[in-house]
């Protein structure tokens, strides 16, 4: 069953076509990768799904319901969470507070209840902290619980972004270059984490990634973008040998000479 359907998505920035007529079908509980050279329109594509940009034309359907025209926070309420290519944490807040912010839309307490010491708000807040701590244990950051997020080492910041995103209990998790800047060991841990999340959290994962080893290892299905257009799609093995993909990555001349 397709959880996410993208239909002929186009985004123009003035005269520049950032994406043109991109269509995708993402199966529930799958791991789907979006790959392509720099500037291919991958992040623009993510930004349209999460309503940071409004598509010029085309449609995005989550379980058959259109997401176009929603506000970014509403997309999160519908069940899509994401991480960012250039890490965007709440640097001045502690690690656990970052995760608690991720749980924002699931917490029902109103601030008036906070002021009046309503017992259910206090209970909810306590339970939320315990759950946030469990999430930190899950992504392996419990030792940093009271640290400011901005002071974390790079790899830990990437994991905290994932922790914050899954705190919203999303149906779909968008990971924008989760392995960028990580060393081989960290990348291996990340691969395990992504695999584990799919089963344990029952989440559909879409990721943008340049690390081909990682992509080929974990994805069920790949989409390849180049200059804003979808040039190929298929299972990892099909993509590996696709002539157009090789050309896009290496350049036409290089492939001809080789």
């Amino acid at each position, binding site marked *: 069953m397709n959880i996410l359907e993208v239909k002929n998505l186009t985004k123009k920035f003035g005269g520049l076509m950032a994406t043109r007529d991109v269509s995708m079908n993402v199966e529930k509980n799958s791991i789907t990768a979006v790959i392509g050279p720099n500037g291919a329109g991958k992040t623009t594509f993510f930004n349209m799904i*999460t309503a*940071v940009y409004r598509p010029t034309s085309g449609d995005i359907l989550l379980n058959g319901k259109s997401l176009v025209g929603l*506000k*970014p*926070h509403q*997309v*999160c*309420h519908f069940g899509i*969470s*994401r991480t*960012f290519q250039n890490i*965007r*944490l*709440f*640097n*001045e*807040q*502690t690690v*656990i*507070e970052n995760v*608690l*912010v*991720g749980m*924002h*839309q699931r*917490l029902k*307490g109103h*601030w008036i209840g*906070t*002021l009046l010491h309503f017992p259910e708000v206090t209970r909810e*807040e306590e339970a939320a*902290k*315990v*759950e946030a*701590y*469990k*999430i930190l*244990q*899950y992504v*392996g950051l*419990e030792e940093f*619980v*009271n640290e*400011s997020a901005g002071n974390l080492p790079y790899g830990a910041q990437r994991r905290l972004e994932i922790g*914050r*995103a899954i705190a*919203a209990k999303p149906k779909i998790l968008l990971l924008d270059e989760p392995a960028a800047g990580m060393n081989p060991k960290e990348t*291996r*841990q990340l*691969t*395990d*984490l992504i*695999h*584990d999340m799919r089963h*344990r*959290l029952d989440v559909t994962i879409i990721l943008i990634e340049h690390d081909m080893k990682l992509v080929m290892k974990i994805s069920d299905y790949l989409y390849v973008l180049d200059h804003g257009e979808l040039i190929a799609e298929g299972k990892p093995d099909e993509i590996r040998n696709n002539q157009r993909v090789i050309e896009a990555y290496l350049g036409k001349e290089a492939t001809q000479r080789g």
Partner: protein
Amino acid sequence: MIKNAFHKFADSTKAQIIFFAAYVLITAFGLFLLSDSVIAFLVLLLSILILYYLKLNVRIKWALGLLIIAVLVPFAASQGSSYQSFMDVGTLVLIYVAMALGLNIVVGFAGLLDLGFIAFFAVGAYTYGIFGSTQANKFMPFGHFPVPGDAFWLFIPIGAIIAAVFGILLGIPVLRVRGDYLAIVTLGFGEIIRIVFNNMDHPINITNGSMGIPSIEPPSFFGIPIGQPSQFYYIALVIFMLAIYVATRLEHSKLGRAWKAVRDNEIAAQASGIPLVKTKLAAFAIGASFSGMMGSVFAAKQMYIDASSFTYLESTIVLVMVILGGMGSIPGVILGAAVVIILNNQVLTSLSTWLTQLSASGVVSVPDALSPAKMQRFIFGILLVVFALYRTKGLIPYKNKKVDAAHLKAEAAVKTSQYEEHPEAEGTH
């Protein structure tokens, strides 16, 4: 050795309490005897700051602090002829602390630079000013004004609500812009409010224009009229306590986290499900309501208001309090506001008087233009530059609240959830 002794002192609750009690009693007694001494008054107030740094139970600290400002300070100051002027400064400090706490929500928590914050204070002041005097008769076809002094208490929440409504009215158009642009627009808003109040005497006379609103009814408490600064001090104290309560409760709540998330990274905050506009408007409305409440108190205390009390300089002063104290830091903002007001109204004026006396007796001659009381902007300017260079996070920098990790770990071990074990524990797939 000194360091060692200090550590011993810091570890012993008993030693701290004895030291603190001795300090408070001696300084209170000092003020009691030297009743008109500004220095004795300041030294006694310093005890609040010392209290903040003692390692005691938080509830004990609050109780002691309240005891000092509600009972000890008024009592110790009550002997001399300066009693009312001390209490007047005390009231002003409390008024400005509450405003600074409100602005701290907007600027410190939510990261929205507001340069026209005094407008909400003006709204609160005019709300009581208009209905607490005969002014309302000039445009209201029904009802008889001024409202009786007993109705003043109603105007504290009314001032809060009207200021909050103005906060939202400002917020809706303004929140489309960010950063520097937001600062400029709020500055404009502050000026517009002042100028409108200054000119709303025609075609319908609502604010009496630049003549201001005179003879505002003093409040009364079950028939007892309240007119002395020493009485307003307690009204301001209650609202001040309320402001501290609201600010501290919200700071680490869901809403407080949302504010800081919006401040730290707007895009990530939205992606985490935080509605941007609603969250920012809440900051504007709640921050403004603190000012609105104190505005009503201000109007009742002054018994006369006009638009010249709400100039851009006043907005800057409140902002200076927040920056000087430490953005986002509640104890810092309280200290910042106290320092600015006391410096302005006690230290500089006392220095000026002293210098005038010296010049009169012919010891030195200081031209009137150089009197410290006239240099407040210069002094605040210097202070800001010094802080920007050497203490960018303010007098008491913001500290993150730490959770009890051991407690959470124990709780997490008991409670089962879907995040059972660390993925590494089960090996690679």
